[in-house]
């Protein structure tokens, strides 16, 4: 009797476990599929400015793109932008402007308005003219 009970019990537990797994599976499937629907999608707006020589000014024409995509936008005359696609937490926006260090910003729930400040890079501005001027040796008078 005692033995039979034990067997019964084991079987019972086993069946319970099986259905549990199915339920759990169902739960996870629902969880993951619903997750993408439920995840907050935000429209990202903001202003881009550049800091140079301890002064900050808005940057017109900053290149802004979603990392790993071809979705891009550009900041307007006031430095403002609205990214054309809604973004999710974890997306990375890249900001680049000539003469400034590129900045990557990770999007989170609080990113609906972002203030982006790019720092000036340290490269020196140089320019050698392309010249076809023929070389002439310097000569002392004896030559």
């Amino acid at each position: 009797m005692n033995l039979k009970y034990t067997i019964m019990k084991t079987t019972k537990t086993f069946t319970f476990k099986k259905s549990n797994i199915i339920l759990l599976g169902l739960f996870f499937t629902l969880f993951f599929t619903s997750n993408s629907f439920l995840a907050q999608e935000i429209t990202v707006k903001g202003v881009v400015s550049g800091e140079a020589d301890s002064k900050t000014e808005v940057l017109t024409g900053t290149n802004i793109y979603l990392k790993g995509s071809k979705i891009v936008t550009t900041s307007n005359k006031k430095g403002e932008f609205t990214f054309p696609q809604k973004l999710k937490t974890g997306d990375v926006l890249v900001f680049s402007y000539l003469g400034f260090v590129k900045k990557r910003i990770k999007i989170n729930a609080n990113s609906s308005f972002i203030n982006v400040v790019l720092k000036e890079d340290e490269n020196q501005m140089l320019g050698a003219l392309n010249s076809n001027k023929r070389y002439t040796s310097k000569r002392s008078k004896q030559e």
Partner: protein
Amino acid sequence: MQKIGFFLLFLFVKTCFAQQSDFKNIDFTKADNRAKIIKSKKLLKLNELTFKLTENLETDVEKFRAIYVWICSNIANDYRLYALNDRKRNRFEKDSIRLNKWNSRFKKLLFKKLLKKKRTICTGYAYLLKEMANIAGIEAKIVNGFGRTGAIDLEKINANHTWNVVKLNEKWYLCDPTWSAGISYPDEGKFVFQLNDGYFLTDPALFIKNHFPVDVSYTLLENNSPSIEEFIEMPLFYGKGYDVFEKDISPFKMHHEIKQNETFTFQYKLKKELDLNSIKLVFYNGSTEKSIKPETSLQENILTIKHQFKRTGFYDLHLYAEGEITVTYTFRISK
């Protein structure tokens, strides 16, 4: 095992020559046409412009080519900006705080001019090329260094020029968009567009002739990088030299001291077909100039020029091809 050997050999050969001829089998016509057709009044939307230039081009090298040719045929060199910067940099040469302040102010002016008026100086070209390449997903860097021309005093060697390195098929290549774009005539204050293919993915052994980077790893010559002293002693190449020669074979020095009646040999690997009748040697002794048609021969694509020096004296010797100066040497001929 043998297969692996072949594969390794292939890899080795591939890493040895980083130059335009790596892409011989790629036809740039499509990329070049794209660069020709697309116009943009201002550069305020670099993303869109870059995507327009590169869409439907299959390889990175074609995409890069379209960007490069577009920049070189649309961005003018601004002599006034150059002169202004040159003056200020000389004035603040020994005052790094004021120099950096000036650099920062000038940078703003430079990029404004570039984006709104499509005019700039070297660093502007290099920045733009890097930015547009990056937008197209191609890695590129800016290189600062010393650019050598016939107009530059070699006793005053300072970083004065900026160019680029670009990574294509996992390998770095050299290019100089500023000098590819055209020629400046400072006396007349004008700039003439004239696309020079010679500075596009140039053989590092030729590129070094007039580009000495501040960071020598950017010569791409690895252990064969010259010292600055060796660099100064190299022959002086002009834009046309880059257009016609793949690289020079000999001599490797600018100045030569030889005996009268000695025969001297010059050798170059040609990049394209060249009319041998257009080759001239021009001698200048400080007062008079003499031009001769030297003895030339062509084997495969190796051009050999021979000349016997009959007169003593000190000469600047210029090699001309297709009516333009390509390279200068100096000779002292003694008895």
